[in-house]
């Protein structure tokens, strides 16, 4: 199996490590890291560095009864961990979803155009105006031309596409922003595309068809 070629930058990796990303971005990072040994290695390196920094630090004294409290707490029975099972919608049967997406609530899909569906992902604490969804595009189609306000992340799950920056396959992490004018990704190969998309701001459609699609797509 080939590993991804397109990766998030250091700054995103760092913000992911320290938990500073909004839920959609964090989900995109987690999904990418799951298939990317390179970024997993970087994240582990952050833990190794953090451990070393922790080791090096002079402690701040704990309160007098801290050890007694600690020794008492380990005697208490552990509350059962609540494992919430998330029901997977029927339309995702047969898709080999990464672990990161098995734990999130995926709502029903809607058809944005013939051959194009989108399924919103519900994330607690997602900032207003941001959107996270799964998108499937039938092979051979071209996405509506659009520009971005704010960043848009795409993590490929299945299939391949190409845009002005390069070719993308499973696991690849693609980020677009305002500087990517008139972004027109097109699908490659015989497989339908499935990807995770995170938008920090609304997409601005450039073509008539995209304007027509907008109310359906909720973008």
């Amino acid at each position, binding site marked *: 199996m080939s590993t991804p070629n397109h990766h998030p930058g*250091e700054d995103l990796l*760092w913000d992911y490590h*320290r938990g500073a990303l909004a839920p959609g971005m964090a989900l995109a990072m987690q999904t990418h890291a799951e298939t990317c040994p390179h970024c*997993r*290695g*970087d994240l*582990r390196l952050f833990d190794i560095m953090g451990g070393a*920094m922790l080791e090096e*630090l002079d402690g701040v004294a704990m309160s007098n009864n801290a050890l007694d409290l600690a020794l008492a707490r*380990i005697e208490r029975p552990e509350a059962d961990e609540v494992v919430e099972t998330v029901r997977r919608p029927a339309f995702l049967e047969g898709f080999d979803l990464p672990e990161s997406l098995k734990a999130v609530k995926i709502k029903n899909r809607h058809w944005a155009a013939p051959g194009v569906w989108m399924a919103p992902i519900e994330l607690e604490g997602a900032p207003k105006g941001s959107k996270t969804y799964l998108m499937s595009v039938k092979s051979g189609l071209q996405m509506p031309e659009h520009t971005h306000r704010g960043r848009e992340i795409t993590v490929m799950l299945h299939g391949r596409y190409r845009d002005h920056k390069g070719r993308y396959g499973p696991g690849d992490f693609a980020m677009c922003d305002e500087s990517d004018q008139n972004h027109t990704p097109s699908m490659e190969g015989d497989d339908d595309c499935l990807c995770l998309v995170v938008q920090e701001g609304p997409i601005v459609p450039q073509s008539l068809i995209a304007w027509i699609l907008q109310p359906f797509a909720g973008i």
Partner: protein
Amino acid sequence: MKDDSLGPVITTPEALIARIAQSRDRQAYAQLFTRFAPKLKAFVMGQGMNAQEAEDLAQDVLLKVWRKAEMFDASKATAVTWIYSIARNLRIDAARKAKRTRELPEDLWQSEPPRPADQQLADSQSVHTINGLMETLPEEQKTILRLSFYEDLSHGDIAAALALPLGTVKSRLRLAMTRLKTAMAALVPGDRV
């Protein structure tokens, strides 16, 4: 309590965790707590928690070490790396007031099926020397690491704090990471980092 003749002086935190995993050794836990709780408290206070929150977090981290001790794999990580990763997760949870801990890659250090193409990041032997390796980094890179880890700043914040371009901050961090990886790889012949 068990007898003290086992000699706490030479006991590594890895051995303490192993004793907890094998026999729920409370004396080992007390030693581990005494060694790491104050450091954890200091660490998260530097990142902005108040003394009480920091103390609670240190308690929770070590409680988790007690409960998950059998999941610790010394061939994958040192004890301090593992403890740090638990602290990181709990701190983020606390910040989000989230009920669930699933979103974050907590299991980064738990067993993972071997993948041939995977980067084998340093086994615990090489990790032991990571402090020594970090000492060898140029001061300008160490400064970035200190601001990153001890003050929990983004690269944008660090750029502002040091009046440097963002690209310089990112590239210094990348240089430090590459240097550490290379040095760690050299310590473990045959291990790709």
